[in-house]
Protein backbone atom coordinates (compact mmCIF):
# COMPACT_ATOMS: atom_id res chain seq x y z
CA UNK A 1 0.00 0.00 0.00
CA UNK A 2 2.65 2.51 1.03
CA UNK A 3 4.66 1.65 -2.02
CA UNK A 4 1.74 2.30 -4.29
CA UNK A 5 0.94 5.54 -2.52
CA UNK A 6 4.50 6.72 -3.03
CA UNK A 7 3.78 6.93 -6.75
CA UNK A 8 1.61 9.96 -6.09
CA UNK A 9 4.57 12.13 -5.05
CA UNK A 10 5.44 12.77 -8.67
CA UNK A 11 2.08 14.46 -9.16
CA UNK A 12 3.22 17.24 -6.80
CA UNK A 13 5.94 19.31 -8.49
CA UNK A 14 6.56 21.41 -5.38
CA UNK A 15 7.74 18.40 -3.41
CA UNK A 16 10.58 17.87 -5.84
CA UNK A 17 12.93 20.49 -4.41
CA UNK A 18 15.65 20.99 -1.89
CA UNK A 19 15.25 23.24 1.11
CA UNK A 20 18.42 24.20 2.94
CA UNK A 21 20.26 21.66 0.79
CA UNK A 22 18.07 18.74 1.88
CA UNK A 23 15.19 17.08 0.04
CA UNK A 24 12.05 18.85 1.22
CA UNK A 25 9.91 16.89 3.64
CA UNK A 26 6.61 18.72 3.87
CA UNK A 27 4.90 17.97 7.17
CA UNK A 28 2.68 21.03 7.53
CA UNK A 29 -0.37 19.55 5.87
CA UNK A 30 -2.74 20.48 8.66
CA UNK A 31 -2.01 24.11 7.76
CA UNK A 32 -2.41 23.61 4.03
CA UNK A 33 -1.69 20.86 1.50
CA UNK A 34 0.28 20.95 -1.72
CA UNK A 35 -1.50 20.86 -5.07
CA UNK A 36 -1.20 18.10 -7.64
CA UNK A 37 -0.69 18.94 -11.29
CA UNK A 38 -4.29 17.89 -12.01
CA UNK A 39 -5.60 20.72 -9.81
CA UNK A 40 -3.21 23.38 -11.09
CA UNK A 41 -3.98 22.38 -14.67
CA UNK A 42 -7.74 22.42 -14.10
CA UNK A 43 -7.47 26.00 -12.87
CA UNK A 44 -5.16 26.98 -15.74
CA UNK A 45 -7.38 25.33 -18.33
CA UNK A 46 -10.40 27.06 -16.91
CA UNK A 47 -8.70 30.42 -17.39
CA UNK A 48 -7.32 29.47 -20.81
CA UNK A 49 -10.57 28.13 -22.21
CA UNK A 50 -13.74 28.70 -20.20
CA UNK A 51 -13.43 31.82 -18.05
CA UNK A 52 -16.62 33.88 -17.75
CA UNK A 53 -18.91 35.01 -14.98
CA UNK A 54 -21.48 32.46 -13.91
CA UNK A 55 -25.26 32.74 -13.97
CA UNK A 56 -24.96 35.98 -15.92
CA UNK A 57 -24.28 35.73 -19.61
CA UNK A 58 -26.15 33.93 -22.32
CA UNK A 59 -22.96 33.42 -24.30
CA UNK A 60 -21.20 30.11 -24.68
CA UNK A 61 -18.33 30.75 -22.27
CA UNK A 62 -20.74 31.89 -19.58
CA UNK A 63 -22.68 28.70 -20.03
CA UNK A 64 -19.55 26.59 -19.82
CA UNK A 65 -18.38 28.36 -16.68
CA UNK A 66 -21.80 28.05 -15.08
CA UNK A 67 -22.01 24.39 -15.91
CA UNK A 68 -18.56 23.72 -14.43
CA UNK A 69 -19.45 25.74 -11.33
CA UNK A 70 -22.71 23.89 -10.73
CA UNK A 71 -21.28 20.46 -11.59
CA UNK A 72 -18.79 20.79 -8.78
CA UNK A 73 -21.68 21.35 -6.40
CA UNK A 74 -23.05 17.95 -7.37
CA UNK A 75 -19.59 16.44 -7.02
CA UNK A 76 -19.18 17.86 -3.52
CA UNK A 77 -22.62 16.61 -2.50
CA UNK A 78 -21.58 13.14 -3.57
CA UNK A 79 -18.18 13.47 -1.88
CA UNK A 80 -19.72 14.07 1.56
CA UNK A 81 -22.94 12.15 0.90
CA UNK A 82 -25.20 15.17 1.15
CA UNK A 83 -28.81 14.45 0.14
CA UNK A 84 -28.93 17.33 -2.33
CA UNK A 85 -26.59 19.56 -4.29
CA UNK A 86 -28.73 22.50 -3.22
CA UNK A 87 -27.38 22.05 0.29
CA UNK A 88 -23.82 22.78 -0.86
CA UNK A 89 -22.85 26.42 -0.26
CA UNK A 90 -19.58 27.79 -1.58
CA UNK A 91 -17.56 29.74 0.97
CA UNK A 92 -13.97 30.87 1.18
CA UNK A 93 -13.21 28.23 3.77
CA UNK A 94 -14.14 26.63 7.07
CA UNK A 95 -13.84 29.91 8.94
CA UNK A 96 -16.37 31.64 6.73
CA UNK A 97 -18.75 28.66 6.85
CA UNK A 98 -18.75 28.53 10.65
CA UNK A 99 -19.09 32.31 10.94
CA UNK A 100 -22.06 32.27 8.59
CA UNK A 101 -23.83 29.64 10.65
CA UNK A 102 -23.16 31.54 13.87
CA UNK A 103 -24.27 34.89 12.44
CA UNK A 104 -26.85 33.86 9.82
CA UNK A 105 -28.52 31.08 11.75
CA UNK A 106 -27.43 31.59 15.36
CA UNK A 107 -28.42 35.22 15.69
CA UNK A 108 -31.99 34.46 14.56
CA UNK A 109 -32.43 31.37 16.67
CA UNK A 110 -30.35 31.60 19.85
CA UNK A 111 -31.90 33.48 22.79
CA UNK A 112 -30.92 34.72 26.24
CA UNK A 113 -30.46 31.78 28.58
CA UNK A 114 -29.75 29.29 25.77
CA UNK A 115 -26.50 27.38 25.88
CA UNK A 116 -23.89 26.83 23.22
CA UNK A 117 -21.61 23.86 23.81
CA UNK A 118 -18.14 23.53 22.31
CA UNK A 119 -14.94 21.83 23.55
CA UNK A 120 -11.49 22.80 24.76
CA UNK A 121 -9.91 21.44 21.59
CA UNK A 122 -11.60 23.82 19.15
CA UNK A 123 -9.71 25.82 16.57
CA UNK A 124 -10.28 29.56 17.08
CA UNK A 125 -12.57 29.54 14.05
CA UNK A 126 -14.97 27.16 15.80
CA UNK A 127 -14.68 29.07 19.05
CA UNK A 128 -14.63 32.82 18.53
CA UNK A 129 -17.80 32.90 16.34
CA UNK A 130 -19.71 31.12 19.14
CA UNK A 131 -18.19 33.33 21.80
CA UNK A 132 -19.34 36.34 19.78
CA UNK A 133 -22.79 34.84 19.33
CA UNK A 134 -23.03 34.18 23.07
CA UNK A 135 -22.05 37.77 23.83
CA UNK A 136 -24.56 39.16 21.34
CA UNK A 137 -27.51 36.99 22.36
CA UNK A 138 -26.90 36.56 26.07
CA UNK A 139 -26.46 32.81 25.61
CA UNK A 140 -23.96 30.90 27.73
CA UNK A 141 -20.87 29.30 26.19
CA UNK A 142 -19.93 25.95 27.75
CA UNK A 143 -16.94 23.70 27.19
CA UNK A 144 -16.72 19.91 27.03
CA UNK A 145 -13.73 18.65 29.01
CA UNK A 146 -11.02 16.37 27.66
CA UNK A 147 -9.61 13.16 29.07
CA UNK A 148 -5.95 12.98 29.99
CA UNK A 149 -5.16 11.52 26.56
CA UNK A 150 -6.91 14.40 24.80
CA UNK A 151 -10.08 12.59 23.75
CA UNK A 152 -13.43 14.20 24.50
CA UNK A 153 -14.70 13.20 27.92
CA UNK A 154 -18.05 11.54 27.18
CA UNK A 155 -19.28 12.10 30.73
CA UNK A 156 -18.69 15.80 30.26
CA UNK A 157 -20.56 15.57 26.94
CA UNK A 158 -23.56 14.16 28.82
CA UNK A 159 -23.32 16.85 31.49
CA UNK A 160 -22.83 19.86 29.28
CA UNK A 161 -25.52 19.11 26.69
CA UNK A 162 -28.90 19.77 28.30
CA UNK A 163 -32.37 20.92 27.35
CA UNK A 164 -31.04 24.47 27.45
CA UNK A 165 -28.55 23.68 24.70
CA UNK A 166 -29.32 25.30 21.38
CA UNK A 167 -26.09 24.52 19.54
CA UNK A 168 -23.30 21.98 19.88
CA UNK A 169 -20.32 22.87 17.71
CA UNK A 170 -17.40 20.46 17.59
CA UNK A 171 -14.43 19.71 15.48
CA UNK A 172 -14.50 16.30 13.82
CA UNK A 173 -10.72 15.92 14.08
CA UNK A 174 -8.49 18.05 16.30
CA UNK A 175 -5.86 20.04 14.41
CA UNK A 176 -3.47 19.60 17.36
CA UNK A 177 -4.21 16.26 19.02
CA UNK A 178 -5.19 14.38 15.88
CA UNK A 179 -8.07 12.70 17.72
CA UNK A 180 -11.22 11.78 15.85
CA UNK A 181 -14.28 12.78 17.84
CA UNK A 182 -17.32 10.45 17.99
CA UNK A 183 -19.58 12.94 16.24
CA UNK A 184 -22.38 10.47 15.45
CA UNK A 185 -22.74 9.57 19.13
CA UNK A 186 -22.66 13.18 20.23
CA UNK A 187 -25.09 14.20 17.49
CA UNK A 188 -27.50 11.62 18.85
CA UNK A 189 -27.29 13.15 22.34
CA UNK A 190 -27.54 16.63 20.85
CA UNK A 191 -30.72 15.79 18.97
CA UNK A 192 -32.31 14.22 22.05
CA UNK A 193 -32.11 17.70 23.52
CA UNK A 194 -33.42 19.33 20.36
CA UNK A 195 -30.16 21.13 19.70
CA UNK A 196 -28.21 21.42 16.46
CA UNK A 197 -24.96 19.59 15.71
CA UNK A 198 -22.47 21.77 13.88
CA UNK A 199 -19.29 20.11 12.71
CA UNK A 200 -15.93 21.64 11.83
CA UNK A 201 -14.70 19.23 9.19
CA UNK A 202 -11.49 21.08 8.28
CA UNK A 203 -9.19 18.32 9.51
CA UNK A 204 -11.35 15.29 8.79
CA UNK A 205 -12.59 15.79 5.23
CA UNK A 206 -9.08 15.59 3.69
CA UNK A 207 -8.26 12.34 5.46
CA UNK A 208 -11.33 10.08 5.58
CA UNK A 209 -14.61 9.32 3.85
CA UNK A 210 -17.21 11.81 5.07
CA UNK A 211 -20.89 11.01 5.28
CA UNK A 212 -22.69 14.01 6.74
CA UNK A 213 -25.89 12.00 7.13
CA UNK A 214 -24.25 9.13 9.00
CA UNK A 215 -22.51 11.70 11.22
CA UNK A 216 -25.88 13.17 12.14
CA UNK A 217 -24.61 16.66 11.43
CA UNK A 218 -26.90 19.62 10.85
CA UNK A 219 -24.15 21.83 9.42
CA UNK A 220 -20.69 20.75 8.26
CA UNK A 221 -17.90 23.05 7.08
CA UNK A 222 -14.55 22.36 5.42
CA UNK A 223 -11.78 24.06 3.43
CA UNK A 224 -10.60 23.16 -0.05
CA UNK A 225 -6.97 24.10 0.53
CA UNK A 226 -6.51 21.37 3.12
CA UNK A 227 -7.51 18.73 0.56
CA UNK A 228 -5.34 19.62 -2.44
CA UNK A 229 -7.61 22.38 -3.80
CA UNK A 230 -6.64 26.05 -4.14
CA UNK A 231 -6.92 28.48 -1.23
CA UNK A 232 -10.01 30.64 -1.01
CA UNK A 233 -12.63 27.99 -1.63
CA UNK A 234 -14.54 26.01 0.95
CA UNK A 235 -17.88 24.37 1.55
CA UNK A 236 -20.67 24.82 4.01
CA UNK A 237 -23.20 22.02 3.97
CA UNK A 238 -26.46 22.42 5.88
CA UNK A 239 -29.76 20.58 5.96
CA UNK A 240 -32.09 22.26 3.49
CA UNK A 241 -34.68 23.09 6.16
CA UNK A 242 -31.98 24.89 8.16
CA UNK A 243 -30.47 26.68 5.18
CA UNK A 244 -33.98 27.95 4.41
CA UNK A 245 -34.14 29.53 7.86
CA UNK A 246 -30.63 30.95 7.69
CA UNK A 247 -30.12 34.55 6.60
CA UNK A 248 -27.59 35.53 3.99
CA UNK A 249 -24.79 37.79 5.18
CA UNK A 250 -23.72 39.29 1.90
CA UNK A 251 -26.25 41.15 -0.13
CA UNK A 252 -25.80 42.20 -3.70
CA UNK A 253 -25.49 40.69 -7.13
CA UNK A 254 -26.21 37.07 -7.86
CA UNK A 255 -28.05 36.25 -4.63
CA UNK A 256 -31.21 38.23 -5.31
CA UNK A 257 -34.52 37.21 -6.77
CA UNK A 258 -36.26 40.57 -7.24
CA UNK A 259 -35.03 43.97 -6.10
CA UNK A 260 -37.51 46.80 -5.64
CA UNK A 261 -36.86 50.24 -4.21
CA UNK A 262 -37.76 49.36 -0.63
CA UNK A 263 -37.52 45.59 -0.48
CA UNK A 264 -35.81 42.62 -2.03
CA UNK A 265 -36.52 38.94 -2.24
CA UNK A 266 -33.66 36.47 -2.35
CA UNK A 267 -32.95 33.37 -4.33
CA UNK A 268 -33.29 30.01 -2.60
CA UNK A 269 -30.33 28.32 -0.91
CA UNK A 270 -27.54 27.80 -1.75
CA UNK A 271 -27.50 30.80 -4.12
CA UNK A 272 -28.88 33.29 -1.61
CA UNK A 273 -25.63 32.95 0.34
CA UNK A 274 -23.37 33.47 -2.64
CA UNK A 275 -23.48 37.22 -3.09
CA UNK A 276 -21.18 38.73 -5.69
CA UNK A 277 -18.86 37.08 -8.16
CA UNK A 278 -17.66 33.82 -6.75
CA UNK A 279 -14.25 32.12 -6.73
CA UNK A 280 -15.10 30.21 -9.87
CA UNK A 281 -11.56 29.03 -10.61
CA UNK A 282 -11.33 27.86 -7.01
CA UNK A 283 -14.50 25.86 -7.46
CA UNK A 284 -13.07 24.27 -10.60
CA UNK A 285 -9.87 23.45 -8.68
CA UNK A 286 -11.91 21.94 -5.87
CA UNK A 287 -13.68 19.72 -8.36
CA UNK A 288 -10.35 18.52 -9.72
CA UNK A 289 -9.05 17.89 -6.20
CA UNK A 290 -12.10 15.77 -5.34
CA UNK A 291 -11.65 13.78 -8.56
CA UNK A 292 -8.03 13.20 -7.64
CA UNK A 293 -8.83 12.11 -4.10
CA UNK A 294 -11.65 9.83 -5.18
CA UNK A 295 -9.44 8.18 -7.76
CA UNK A 296 -7.06 7.21 -4.96
CA UNK A 297 -9.94 6.46 -2.60
CA UNK A 298 -10.49 8.13 0.75
CA UNK A 299 -10.25 4.78 2.51
CA UNK A 300 -6.83 4.19 0.97
CA UNK A 301 -5.68 7.62 2.08
CA UNK A 302 -6.82 6.93 5.62
CA UNK A 303 -5.15 3.51 5.57
CA UNK A 304 -1.91 5.04 4.26
CA UNK A 305 -1.80 7.60 7.07
CA UNK A 306 -2.45 4.79 9.56
CA UNK A 307 0.52 2.84 8.20
CA UNK A 308 2.68 5.95 8.60
CA UNK A 309 1.49 6.57 12.15
CA UNK A 310 1.94 2.92 13.16
CA UNK A 311 5.55 3.16 12.03
CA UNK A 312 6.42 6.66 13.25
CA UNK A 313 4.74 6.93 16.64
CA UNK A 314 6.72 4.08 18.23
CA UNK A 315 9.97 5.57 16.86
CA UNK A 316 9.11 8.97 18.31
CA UNK A 317 8.08 7.47 21.64
CA UNK A 318 11.58 6.05 21.94
CA UNK A 319 13.15 9.50 21.91
CA UNK A 320 13.90 10.48 25.49
CA UNK A 321 12.44 13.79 26.57
CA UNK A 322 9.86 13.86 23.77
CA UNK A 323 6.23 14.35 24.75
CA UNK A 324 3.49 13.53 22.25
CA UNK A 325 0.15 15.19 22.94
CA UNK A 326 -3.08 13.31 22.38
CA UNK A 327 -3.72 9.56 22.29
CA UNK A 328 -0.56 7.47 22.09
CA UNK A 329 -2.18 4.75 19.99
CA UNK A 330 -2.04 5.23 16.22
CA UNK A 331 -5.57 3.84 15.71
CA UNK A 332 -7.05 6.69 17.69
CA UNK A 333 -5.60 9.48 15.58
CA UNK A 334 -5.07 10.85 12.13
CA UNK A 335 -1.72 11.91 10.69
CA UNK A 336 -1.21 14.84 13.07
CA UNK A 337 1.48 14.68 15.73
CA UNK A 338 1.94 17.56 18.17
CA UNK A 339 4.98 17.22 20.38
CA UNK A 340 7.58 18.98 22.49
CA UNK A 341 11.14 18.22 23.52
CA UNK A 342 12.08 18.77 27.14
CA UNK A 343 13.84 22.08 27.78
CA UNK A 344 13.46 23.20 24.19
CA UNK A 345 11.04 25.79 22.93
CA UNK A 346 8.97 24.56 19.95
CA UNK A 347 10.09 27.54 17.85
CA UNK A 348 13.70 26.56 18.24
CA UNK A 349 12.87 22.97 17.33
CA UNK A 350 10.94 23.99 14.22
CA UNK A 351 13.78 26.25 13.07
CA UNK A 352 16.24 23.39 13.49
CA UNK A 353 13.97 21.01 11.57
CA UNK A 354 13.62 23.59 8.81
CA UNK A 355 17.41 23.69 8.52
CA UNK A 356 17.16 19.96 7.84
CA UNK A 357 14.58 20.52 5.11
CA UNK A 358 11.62 19.44 7.24
CA UNK A 359 8.62 21.77 7.27
CA UNK A 360 6.67 21.63 10.52
CA UNK A 361 4.72 24.22 12.42
CA UNK A 362 5.42 25.61 15.87
CA UNK A 363 3.01 27.68 17.87
CA UNK A 364 -0.43 27.53 19.39
CA UNK A 365 -2.06 26.26 16.18
CA UNK A 366 -4.97 28.68 16.56
CA UNK A 367 -6.03 26.80 19.67
CA UNK A 368 -4.94 28.97 22.59
CA UNK A 369 -7.57 27.59 25.00
CA UNK A 370 -6.31 24.07 24.24
CA UNK A 371 -2.70 25.13 24.89
CA UNK A 372 -3.80 26.59 28.23
CA UNK A 373 -5.68 23.35 28.95
CA UNK A 374 -2.57 21.28 28.15
CA UNK A 375 -0.50 23.80 30.15
CA UNK A 376 2.01 24.37 27.38
CA UNK A 377 2.69 27.70 25.67
CA UNK A 378 3.01 26.03 22.28
CA UNK A 379 3.95 22.79 20.52
CA UNK A 380 5.67 21.60 17.38
CA UNK A 381 3.30 19.91 14.97
CA UNK A 382 4.09 17.48 12.18
CA UNK A 383 1.13 16.63 9.96
CA UNK A 384 1.19 14.00 7.21
CA UNK A 385 -0.77 13.50 4.01
CA UNK A 386 -1.14 11.07 1.17
CA UNK A 387 2.18 12.01 -0.48
CA UNK A 388 4.25 11.53 2.67
CA UNK A 389 6.31 8.38 2.96
CA UNK A 390 7.88 6.20 5.60
CA UNK A 391 11.17 7.84 4.58
CA UNK A 392 9.66 11.22 5.48
CA UNK A 393 8.75 9.84 8.88
CA UNK A 394 12.27 8.57 9.31
CA UNK A 395 13.66 11.98 8.36
CA UNK A 396 11.49 13.53 11.07
CA UNK A 397 12.72 11.07 13.67
CA UNK A 398 16.35 11.65 12.69
CA UNK A 399 15.79 15.40 12.51
CA UNK A 400 14.42 15.49 16.02
CA UNK A 401 17.36 13.45 17.29
CA UNK A 402 19.82 15.82 15.63
CA UNK A 403 17.98 18.81 17.07
CA UNK A 404 18.18 17.31 20.53
CA UNK A 405 21.88 16.75 20.06
CA UNK A 406 22.46 20.30 18.80
CA UNK A 407 20.76 21.79 21.84
CA UNK A 408 21.95 19.13 24.22
CA UNK A 409 22.19 21.58 27.09
CA UNK A 410 18.68 22.86 26.52
CA UNK A 411 17.70 26.32 25.41
CA UNK A 412 15.17 27.31 28.03
Amino acid at each position, binding site marked *: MVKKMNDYIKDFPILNQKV*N*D*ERLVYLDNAATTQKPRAVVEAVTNYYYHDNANVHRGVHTLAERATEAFENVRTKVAHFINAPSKDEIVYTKGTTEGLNWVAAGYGRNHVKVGDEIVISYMEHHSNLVPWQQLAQQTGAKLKYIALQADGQLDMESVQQQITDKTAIVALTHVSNVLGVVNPIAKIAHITHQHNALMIVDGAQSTPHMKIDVQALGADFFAFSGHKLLAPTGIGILWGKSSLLAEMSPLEFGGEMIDWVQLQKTTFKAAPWKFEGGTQNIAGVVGLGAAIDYLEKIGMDNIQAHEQVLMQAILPELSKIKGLTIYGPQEAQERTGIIAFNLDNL*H*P*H*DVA*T*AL*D*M*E*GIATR*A*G*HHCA*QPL*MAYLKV*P*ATVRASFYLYNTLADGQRLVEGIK*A*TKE*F*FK*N*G*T*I
Partner: protein
Amino acid sequence: MALSKLENLYRQMILEHAAHPHHHGSLKKTSQKIELRNPTCGDVLTLEVELKDGKVADIAFAGSGCTISQASASMMTDEVIGKTPAQIAKMVVAFSEMVTGKETDETEELLGDATILAGVAQFPARIKCATLAWKAVYQAVKADDSKATLGLLHHDV
Protein backbone atom coordinates in the same frame (compact mmCIF):
# COMPACT_ATOMS: atom_id res chain seq x y z
CA MET B 1 23.51 21.61 5.36
CA ALA B 2 21.99 19.87 8.31
CA LEU B 3 22.41 21.96 11.41
CA SER B 4 25.63 23.85 10.74
CA LYS B 5 23.79 27.00 9.66
CA LEU B 6 21.97 26.96 12.98
CA GLU B 7 25.16 28.08 14.67
CA ASN B 8 24.73 31.46 13.01
CA LEU B 9 21.54 31.87 14.96
CA TYR B 10 22.24 30.06 18.19
CA ARG B 11 25.58 31.61 19.12
CA GLN B 12 26.98 30.58 22.48
CA MET B 13 26.26 33.96 24.03
CA ILE B 14 22.64 33.74 22.90
CA LEU B 15 22.21 30.32 24.45
CA GLU B 16 23.74 31.57 27.68
CA HIS B 17 21.45 34.58 27.88
CA ALA B 18 18.43 32.36 27.22
CA ALA B 19 19.48 29.84 29.85
CA HIS B 20 20.39 32.49 32.44
CA PRO B 21 18.55 35.64 31.49
CA HIS B 22 19.62 38.94 33.03
CA HIS B 23 17.05 41.13 34.80
CA HIS B 24 14.48 38.36 34.85
CA GLY B 25 11.66 38.79 37.33
CA SER B 26 9.92 41.92 38.57
CA LEU B 27 10.80 45.27 40.15
CA LYS B 28 9.90 46.72 43.53
CA LYS B 29 9.51 50.22 42.11
CA THR B 30 7.96 50.38 38.69
CA SER B 31 7.08 53.47 36.71
CA GLN B 32 6.02 51.67 33.54
CA LYS B 33 4.66 48.19 33.02
CA ILE B 34 3.71 46.64 29.73
CA GLU B 35 2.61 43.23 28.50
CA LEU B 36 3.15 42.28 24.87
CA ARG B 37 2.19 39.11 23.04
CA ASN B 38 3.52 37.53 19.93
CA PRO B 39 0.21 36.50 18.41
CA THR B 40 1.74 33.98 16.03
CA CYS B 41 3.13 31.83 18.79
CA GLY B 42 1.38 32.94 21.95
CA ASP B 43 4.57 34.01 23.70
CA VAL B 44 4.00 36.63 26.39
CA LEU B 45 6.46 39.19 27.66
CA THR B 46 5.95 41.42 30.67
CA LEU B 47 8.30 44.33 31.04
CA GLU B 48 8.71 46.61 34.06
CA VAL B 49 10.75 49.79 33.86
CA GLU B 50 11.81 52.19 36.59
CA LEU B 51 12.53 55.65 35.22
CA LYS B 52 14.55 58.08 37.31
CA ASP B 53 15.85 61.50 36.26
CA GLY B 54 14.69 60.83 32.72
CA LYS B 55 16.68 57.62 32.42
CA VAL B 56 16.04 53.92 32.84
CA ALA B 57 17.23 53.19 36.37
CA ASP B 58 16.17 49.56 36.45
CA ILE B 59 14.29 47.09 34.29
CA ALA B 60 12.94 43.56 34.56
CA PHE B 61 11.18 41.14 32.24
CA ALA B 62 9.14 38.00 32.72
CA GLY B 63 7.23 35.60 30.55
CA SER B 64 7.75 32.58 28.42
CA GLY B 65 9.34 32.39 25.03
CA CYS B 66 11.82 30.74 22.75
CA THR B 67 15.59 31.05 22.96
CA ILE B 68 15.66 34.01 20.63
CA SER B 69 12.97 36.01 22.42
CA GLN B 70 14.42 35.29 25.86
CA ALA B 71 17.99 36.05 24.86
CA SER B 72 16.94 39.18 23.05
CA ALA B 73 15.00 40.39 26.09
CA SER B 74 17.94 39.66 28.36
CA MET B 75 20.38 41.56 26.12
CA MET B 76 17.96 44.42 25.68
CA THR B 77 17.71 44.89 29.47
CA ASP B 78 21.50 45.04 29.71
CA GLU B 79 21.73 47.68 27.01
CA VAL B 80 18.96 50.09 27.97
CA ILE B 81 19.87 50.73 31.61
CA GLY B 82 21.07 54.31 31.99
CA LYS B 83 19.62 55.36 28.65
CA THR B 84 17.05 58.06 28.00
CA PRO B 85 13.82 57.31 26.17
CA ALA B 86 15.16 59.15 23.13
CA GLN B 87 18.31 57.03 23.07
CA ILE B 88 16.22 53.89 23.49
CA ALA B 89 14.03 54.83 20.54
CA LYS B 90 17.17 55.06 18.39
CA MET B 91 18.39 51.71 19.67
CA VAL B 92 15.08 50.03 18.95
CA VAL B 93 15.10 51.30 15.39
CA ALA B 94 18.70 50.16 14.95
CA PHE B 95 17.80 46.73 16.30
CA SER B 96 14.79 46.43 14.09
CA GLU B 97 16.93 47.33 11.06
CA MET B 98 19.72 44.98 12.05
CA VAL B 99 17.49 41.91 12.28
CA THR B 100 16.08 42.68 8.88
CA GLY B 101 19.55 42.81 7.40
CA LYS B 102 20.27 46.54 7.50
CA GLU B 103 23.33 47.04 9.65
CA THR B 104 25.03 50.44 9.66
CA ASP B 105 28.29 51.78 11.08
CA GLU B 106 26.36 52.80 14.16
CA THR B 107 24.68 49.48 14.88
CA GLU B 108 27.33 48.08 17.15
CA GLU B 109 27.82 51.34 19.03
CA LEU B 110 24.09 51.59 19.67
CA LEU B 111 23.39 47.98 20.51
CA GLY B 112 26.54 46.66 22.17
CA ASP B 113 26.42 42.91 22.81
CA ALA B 114 22.94 42.69 21.33
CA THR B 115 24.61 43.00 17.92
CA ILE B 116 25.18 39.27 18.13
CA LEU B 117 21.50 38.84 17.24
CA ALA B 118 22.24 40.07 13.70
CA GLY B 119 22.17 36.42 12.60
CA VAL B 120 18.39 36.47 13.00
CA ALA B 121 18.25 38.25 9.64
CA GLN B 122 18.96 34.89 7.99
CA PHE B 123 15.90 33.39 9.70
CA PRO B 124 12.98 35.62 8.70
CA ALA B 125 10.47 33.46 10.58
CA ARG B 126 12.25 34.40 13.81
CA ILE B 127 12.40 38.17 13.45
CA LYS B 128 9.28 38.65 15.55
CA CYS B 129 10.81 36.57 18.34
CA ALA B 130 13.81 38.88 18.42
CA THR B 131 11.94 42.17 18.24
CA LEU B 132 9.27 41.52 20.87
CA ALA B 133 11.28 42.79 23.85
CA TRP B 134 12.52 45.83 21.93
CA LYS B 135 9.02 46.75 20.88
CA ALA B 136 7.99 46.40 24.50
CA VAL B 137 10.67 48.72 25.82
CA TYR B 138 9.94 51.18 23.06
CA GLN B 139 6.30 51.32 24.06
CA ALA B 140 7.09 51.38 27.77
CA VAL B 141 9.28 54.46 27.65
CA LYS B 142 7.83 56.02 24.52
CA ALA B 143 9.93 59.14 24.08
CA ASP B 144 8.16 60.70 21.19
CA ASP B 145 5.13 59.68 19.24
CA SER B 146 6.89 60.19 15.96
CA LYS B 147 5.02 58.13 13.39
CA ALA B 148 8.22 57.79 11.40
CA THR B 149 9.90 55.85 14.16
CA LEU B 150 6.89 53.61 14.66
CA GLY B 151 6.68 53.05 10.96
CA LEU B 152 10.08 51.44 11.03
CA LEU B 153 8.76 48.85 13.42
CA HIS B 154 5.78 47.97 11.35
CA HIS B 155 7.42 45.27 9.31
CA ASP B 156 6.92 42.90 12.15
CA VAL B 157 3.60 43.82 13.70
